[in-house]
């Protein structure tokens, strides 16, 4: 009898849960939503998240509050979302470190592909190779010649971060060796060029607008041309354009995700709201002031995009011995 009672209780219990969940889906959202950001307040990543929050709030009709949970290799921010119910009231602003690099190199207590459902990807950034404006090296071809003769001092922000991985890929493809100098941030790497601490550095395509007169772009570290390259680095070729046989890909993206297991109805609403809010010219212009913009919408497409990032970086990190055991 006890067993039956337990079974009944469980059945009733799950029924109650099911119905409340169903009700919650129907009138989702009926209370404020939280958007968790893994960066401190004030930076680019935070500002884009706040633009996301504003747009979603207008479409969904409830406040979307941004909370910043920085530090801890971005794991605390992810866990903050995964510890909440999968009801669409806690969103996560994902970026390359939290969904691609971090889970690969650390013993992270989550699996981004299994534990999260991405809604969209909005920003996209590409790396570019720079030298100082007064460097003797003027073209990418000249750079390769010089780099073959000596181990050049290469400025990268952090080991295992996309700029470093671009440098690693460059070394593999063209059979070069660099003396990688960790400069902590991308602006610091580029400033190292101006100050003469490094001979060459990996920055981002957008970096040129902040330091235009002092640095010289050599090549965009990507295979194919994207439309914002001409806006940020006019007249600069990609590696793929100069050497079609060589491979040079960058994967730096960001977007919004929810916890896996979130009801389909809620996901549909979020996708629809994102489509309505973020494809407007006004929103794209705002984001374009900060970074480059490339829209991937919907769960399947965004998941595939993230998988591309993992497939790209996993072999490099493995070769560097950085993959988590």
């Amino acid at each position, binding site marked *: 009898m006890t067993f039956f009672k337990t079974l009944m209780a469980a059945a009733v219990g799950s029924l109650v849960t099911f119905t409340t969940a169903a009700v919650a889906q129907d009138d989702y959202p009926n209370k404020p939503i939280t958007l968790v950001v893994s960066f*401190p*307040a*004030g*930076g*680019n990543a*935070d*500002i884009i998240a*706040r633009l996301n929050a*504003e747009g979603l709030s207008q479409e969904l009709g409830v406040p979307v509050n*941004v*909370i*910043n*949970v*920085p*530090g*801890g*290799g971005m*794991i*605390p921010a992810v866990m*903050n979302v995964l510890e909440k119910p999968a009801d669409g009231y806690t969103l996560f602003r994902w970026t390359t470190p939290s969904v691609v690099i971090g889970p690969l*190199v*650390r013993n*992270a*207590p989550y699996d981004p592909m299994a534990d999260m459902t991405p809604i969209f990807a909005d920003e996209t950034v590409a790396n570019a190779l720079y030298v100082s404006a007064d460097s003797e090296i003027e073209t990418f071809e000249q750079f390769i010649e010089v780099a073959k003769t000596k181990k050049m*001092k290469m400025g990268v922000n*952090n*080991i*295992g971060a996309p700029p470093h991985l671009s440098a690693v890929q460059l070394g593999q493809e063209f059979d070069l060796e660099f*003396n990688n*100098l*960790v*400069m*902590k941030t991308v*602006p*610091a790497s580029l*400033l*190292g060029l*101006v*100050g*003469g*601490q490094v001979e060459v550095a990996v920055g981002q395509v957008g970096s040129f*607008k*902040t*330091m*235009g*007169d*002092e640095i010289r772009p050599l090549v965009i570290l990507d295979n194919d041309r994207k439309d914002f390259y001409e806006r940020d680095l006019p007249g600069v070729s990609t590696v793929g354009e100069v050497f079609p046989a060589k491979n040079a890909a960058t994967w730096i993206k960001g977007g919004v995700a929810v916890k896996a297991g979130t009801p389909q109805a809620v996901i549909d609403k979020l996708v629809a709201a994102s489509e309505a809010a973020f494809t407007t010219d006004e929103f794209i212009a705002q984001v374009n*002031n*900060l970074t480059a913009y490339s829209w991937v919408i919907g769960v399947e497409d965004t998941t595939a995009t993230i998988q591309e990032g993992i497939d790209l970086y996993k072999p490099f990190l493995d070769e560097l011995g*950085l993959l988590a055991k």
Partner: protein
Amino acid sequence: MFGGSEAILAALASLGDPTTIMLMVGGITLGIIIGILPGLGPPIAITIALPFTFYMDAVPSIILLLSIYSAAVYGGSISAIAVGIPGTGAAIATVIDGHAMFKKGRGGEALGLSLTGSIIGGIFSVICLAFIAPLLAQIAIKFGPREFLAISIFGLVVVVRVAGENLWKGLAIGGVGIFLTTWGLDEVNGTERYTFGSYHLYEGIPFVAFLVGVFALSEVMMNAETALRKVDFDKSSLSVKLPGMKTLAKLKGTIMRSSLLGTVIGIIPGEGAAVGAFFAYSEAKRRSKNPEAFGTGEPEGVIAPETANNATVGGALVPTLTLGVPGSPAAAVLLGAFLIQGLAPGPRLFAERPDLMYSIFIGLLIINVLMIFIGLIAIRFAAQLIKVPTSVIVPSVVLLCFVGVFSVSNSLFSVGVMIASGFLGYTIRKLGYSIAPLSIGFVLGPILELSLRQSVQISDGSVFEFFASPIALGIYGVLALTILWGPIRARVKKPMEGVDDA
């Protein structure tokens, strides 16, 4: 300069807008209040206001943030003097003599000195920013690993010599501070160091939580021991005495040196108001005729750090505006504000938006003038705070510490770090050591480690290469002089005394 009179007129027009003026007054008030509250420093103050700037034009939003920044750097001195708790890291050096003066019944004088010094330092650095920004930025840009290594060694040695009476005690505690910064992921090769299996420690011990714990929490613990004792102070300590021309004339050397030091340290990327204040304090002590009086309530020990910390504001803006590289943590938040406005700080900003540049220069001058009046009112308010018994202040400060630290990263782990650091600071104080070298070791540790490792990498392992940079060599030279100066002067003095006697 750039753009001419048209740009100046445009700048004046946007600064004269009533909304901008209201934002300035509001920003200064908010900044001073946040500065007074322990644990909430300039970066947090600016961050709180940042979301509101999303809906503003470029000039009012930048002016609002600059008001908060300047006022928060100043506001920290009020609580440093009146209660002996630095409201911000920038006011740590002010506590030593400021609070000693207050205890002696000369609090009004100390408050007047800190206000005057802050304003002079602020105005001086703005003038530097406006006229020699491009030149100074070119010097700062030459700072590479070897130069940073030299400057962090210099900073550490100077601070250790300043704080406390015993050099070895200071070095030991400074070493503990550096050691604690090695916790977390090693950024050069990704190794986990002292993470104890917790991902919370991947990025090291959280900075704000640590400093709030070490300073604010340990301070209230010390205070709590005397909670039942009545706060005893001279009523005259509460009325601000702005220093007269005579006093200022006497202190003008210290004021000028501190203004210059603060501005230069502000320009050096990464070094903020706290380092500037410590440098100026040690310099004032070193140059003083009676250095042993420092710590017992010396006016120069108040005006030197307070002039310098506000001078770092203008200084920190030099690399921020001309290169897009923040000169201080607070300036890093400002950089974000520029980007949301679609402005990319860098050499081109001067050419593209001369009106904005003039708005920043002229706006900062107005902010510093307004700070005199708002500061005088705020001090009165702060004086009311002191009349509140310790039994009310202690729990209130603890509450603010908890809320402040939690709000930085919405993390209970940070709160735990704060409590642990509070006990560490308390223990260190109880053992008779000074906590200043601990905090400076903690601030300079990461710069020291990174620049040392980069220097080794650049030089292929040869130590001699460390000195291959003329700037670094110069810094080591000055350091050697500061260390040797004491004994040399003592030797020179002895025969001189003999001559005098004869």
